[in-house]
């Protein structure tokens, strides 16, 4: 009887139960795919995810290093770590996001600052990240597989996004498009390396929202060289976001490995 009880206990521990009505979850904006045309010169960009937190004294060092990279081809997203040094100071805004928490968990982040290039899980950059600069340059020089550009039009907080992509080389494995909203110039408290707190530290590239599903929306394409596709989707920015400081970041990933193939960004507000 004890044996059956033990097996029953294991059963309770080792089985997830999804309640009826929760079998599906919101997966972000629905992307519609049609044939399209690339509107910008094909370029290889690099996607950098930096995990940070307001109570992380070394995080400003990583910010300094990344700030030295003055290259538009480098697309940076700062993700607030969900626990420990990522917790907000009392009374401060909470910049943790559901999407950021998912990505953090996937990487298994246990120390910040940490950064990854093109979602290559096996290579992690930590601390002041002085060696990340050369790695970014190497990634920028890789042969271009797929080029993409992104454009946004907004009417108040409603945004219509158009993504154009073109296969430069054949790539037939399933790929996904992920879109995220990031915000610059967020001034709030940050612990500094000397132990002091900067009350108005300027946080840039902060992830505010994953617009599509957390792991992207599958791209409807064949993957043959020279194929061009256009994806469009709509979303609402929300009231607590400063449109003038916000960007949309999009990146195309291999569905299985999640490695980023290329990325792009644009301002949310109409540029004219």
């Amino acid at each position, binding site marked *: 009887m004890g*044996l059956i009880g033990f097996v029953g206990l294991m*059963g309770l521990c080792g*089985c*997830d139960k999804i309640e*009826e009505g929760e079998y599906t979850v*919101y*997966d972000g904006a629905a992307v519609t795919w049609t044939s399209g045309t690339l509107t910008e010169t094909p370029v290889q960009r690099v996607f950098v995810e930096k995990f940070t937190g307001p109570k992380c004294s070394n995080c400003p060092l990583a910010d300094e290093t990344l700030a030295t990279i003055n290259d538009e081809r480098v697309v940076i997203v700062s993700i607030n770590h969900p626990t420990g040094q990522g917790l907000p100071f009392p009374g401060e805004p909470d910049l943790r996001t559901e999407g950021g928490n998912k990505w953090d968990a996937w990487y298994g982040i246990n120390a910040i600052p940490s950064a990854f290039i093109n979602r290559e899980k096996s290579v992690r950059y930590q601390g002041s990240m002085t060696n990340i600069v050369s790695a970014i340059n190497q990634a920028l020089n890789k042969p271009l597989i797929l080029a993409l550009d992104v454009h946004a039009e907004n009417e108040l907080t409603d945004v219509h996004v158009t993504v154009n992509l073109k296969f430069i080389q054949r790539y037939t494995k399933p790929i996904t498009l992920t879109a995220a909203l990031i915000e610059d110039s967020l001034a709030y408290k940050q612990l500094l390396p000397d132990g002091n707190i900067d009350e108005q530290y300027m946080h840039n590239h902060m992830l505010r929202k994953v617009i599509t599903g957390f792991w*992207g929306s599958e*791209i409807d394409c064949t993957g043959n060289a020279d194929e061009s596709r256009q994806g469009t989707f709509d979303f609402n920015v929300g009231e607590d976001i400063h449109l003038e400081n916000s960007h949309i970041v999009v990146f195309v990933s291999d569905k299985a490995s999640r490695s980023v193939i290329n990325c792009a960004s644009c301002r949310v507000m109409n540029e004219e």
Partner: protein
Amino acid sequence: MKNIQKTAAGSRDRVANGYRLSAIGYRLFCVGLIFIFQFSFFSPTKAQGILGGHVTGNVQLDGQMSHADSVIGADDVPEKLLMNARADILYSNGDFNAGLRLEMYQNPLLGFDAQWKGSGVANYYVSYKTEKFGITAGHFYEQFGSGMILRTYEDRYLGLDNALFGVNVYVRPVEGVTIKALAGRQRYYWEMAEGLVRGVDGEVNLNSVLSFMKESKFRATLGAGFVSKYEEDELIPSEDPTMRLNLPLNVGAASFRADLGYGNWSLQAEYAHKGQDPWIDNKYVYHEGNALLLNLNYSQRGFSAGIQAKRIDNMGYKSMRSLSGEMLYINYLPAITKNHTYAFLTMYPYATQVNGEQGLQADVMYKFKKGTLLGGEYGTDLHLNGSLVAGLDTTITGGAGTEGYTVNGGLGETLYGDVSLEIAKKLSKAVKLTVTYAYQVFNPVVEGEGHKGLPLIHNHVAIADLSWKLNKKHSLRFEAEWLCSDSYYDESDDHHSDRRAGDWLMGLVEWNIGTHWFISLSDQVPYNDGIGNYYNLSVGYTHGATRFQLGYGKQREGLLCIGGICRQVPASNGLTFSLTTSF
């Protein structure tokens, strides 16, 4: 690019498990195989003493050459020669054992998935086993009960190997009680699946544990097991494009079983239940799974009878939810149809339907004694078997991301049925005749959803098998088979371009020469509404534990099924050879 299956196929490009061989390793592997073969061929010793222990092993090598034949649908083989090879090397020293298996698919035989291509050490383990305790680290095979929640096994002919790589432990704290626990990941061709498999199983023999039952005629063994698999979250779209599936990352399955006996009677019963497990072949629905297997038998000298019942509802259980096909099953759902061996009886084989089926099988064997009217001078064996499998009666309630369906009480469509009567009689000291008649009903949908809606196929099969021992050194075997089917061949119609179609005749002659040589010649010919002519000539030589066989002929395309698990075999036309040896 929408095909979810590509997730699995794409995994070929992921980082390999690290045991596939480099070019140099491949050459060493080939040399090693040849060395092992020569060593065993010329040495009469069965086990080699090394470091106080013993080394044993076996080697198998299968080769194939095939060229195009448009009539039977065989394609040219660009490599000219295909080869599967394997060598198992086992070391044992007291309670300690270690083993490794080298495998080579350069390139895989026709019908084997191209992902097998490669060579290297595919399996290795060390183990320490005593009566009370045992532990295995590395690759291992395990089964809980009948396997409905866990069975890892390999079948070289099906091209299947779902070994777990991890740790497997058992303890027997008191006589009659066995507890097993394991954790690991499954082999996926030359890689490891991402999914993590954990399990515990316990079994109690009441006759050993309870003193008042020690001398009882009533025999009882009870068992229970639990398995859990963990997979990372992934993007599975629901029918609503703005929604994705909220996947259960840990999927559990539990089973309870009883093995009871009294006198000549025995009853095995097992019930299994699986939690929500949306995966590709159940169309990502959240309906929970269950299965029931009952097996009642009676046997006495000269007579045995058994009845088996099985009901499966959504019990496919894999460690990779986005993978279709036969790889990476954690569990095994036994077939309850007779495992036929004659060619025409296996032409339309039954494949277990993991999404849902229910069936019955009855089996009776009777021996008419010597000296009776029907037994004659040497006795007569009679074997009657019948089985019927039907689908579940379901009502569809939704697609991906829903409960999926409800199950009603009735029978679904007929999937398979057969009745066979086999009579075996020794006619004289030298001649034995076996005749078989079978009637089959086969629903093509069991070979895949693409065959849904096709009419049932009805077959009559008659077989005569005669063995004749000419003298102490020579014997002959003759086999004649006849298949009458209402299927027909029509190349212009996709649904009827199956080259099994039509009525068939087959003849086989086999000559065993002494203890070393045999020659076999056979031909299968459709004579009505069919296509092709499948002749085969085989020559074999056996010396001790070594056997070599060379064949030339044509192989019909079709399904090869073993225990309800099937592999598609394409047509081929050419030379085959095989070599097996052990030492």
